[in-house]
């Protein structure tokens, strides 16, 4: 099924520059994507070294494939699918098979604690026991402080790998949901469930940090 996100004019211009041997254009592409490509590969192989090898191999595949790139998806989703395929093949060859549920954290639930809400026998079942503490009094220089952003980074690292990657691609790198679905081969619903769990958990961690461990 073709993607409905096609390559942009910028993608096609970049492909032309790469075909012409433009090293600056290539290194920009590496800077933009290497970290995410390594994380994606790492989901399917056993070690960081194997992930680095898989990504190196994927880059060679991307370069070889450039002449055939027809722009029927965005350049980056096409690149990430090559990375995922190379890493999956490598992982299978190394005898590593990972249940998808462990990547996704399917059994972990969202970051929403049922205990925040009243139970069936209480006055207002499903209503807040107490509202979450208000963030509005917190000054921007604390919210956007280096330490706060580090806390968010740690919360993301604690997520199951697929949740973390969906969140990074969507909220750190600003991809559309469709690009993320295509790059990571997820259904529309699944992408949204993973995003919801990830964002809920990060909000909860951030809340705990901002209010020194008050958990709501």
């Amino acid at each position: 099924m073709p993607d409905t996100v096609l390559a942009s004019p910028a993608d096609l211009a970049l492909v032309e520059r790469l075909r012409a041997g433009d090293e600056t254009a290539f290194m920009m592409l590496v800077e933009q994507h290497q970290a995410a490509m390594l994380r994606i590969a790492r989901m399917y192989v056993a070690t960081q070294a194997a992930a680095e090898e898989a990504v190196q191999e994927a880059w060679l595949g991307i370069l070889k494939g450039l002449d055939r790139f027809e722009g029927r998806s965005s350049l980056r989703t096409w690149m990430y699918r090559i990375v995922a395929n190379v890493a999956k093949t490598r992982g299978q060859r190394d005898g590593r098979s990972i249940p998808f549920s462990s990547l996704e954290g399917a059994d972990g639930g969202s970051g929403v604690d049922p205990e925040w809400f009243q139970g069936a026998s209480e006055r207002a079942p499903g209503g807040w026991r107490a509202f979450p503490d208000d963030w509005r009094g917190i000054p921007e220089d604390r919210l956007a402080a280096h330490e706060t952003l580090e806390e968010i980074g740690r919360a993301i690292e604690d997520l199951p790998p697929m949740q973390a990657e969906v969140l990074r691609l969507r909220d750190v790198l600003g991809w559309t949901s469709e690009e993320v679905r295509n790059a990571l081969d997820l259904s529309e619903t699944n992408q949204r469930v993973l995003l919801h769990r990830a964002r809920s958990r990060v909000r909860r961690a951030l809340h705990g940090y901002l209010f020194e461990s008050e958990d709501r």
Partner: protein
Amino acid sequence: MSTKPLTCHEVVELVTDYLEGALAPDVRARVEGHLADCDGCTRYLEQMRETIRLTGKLTEEQVPEEQKAALLDAFRSWSAG
């Protein structure tokens, strides 16, 4: 789907679908109706928006020099054809 009012717990679990524009129009209307009357859920929704905004300030890790050098070599031999 039933038309009884959504609980706060339900609204909190629908926040991402709401922000993604993925709710059916009738459910969206029920979420918005709930939010109009509920300071707790409005606060939660705002905090999810803030979380997204602050997450957007993170940056990717730098690529180690030796990886860059290896990839540049690969690019040079590819373009030399």
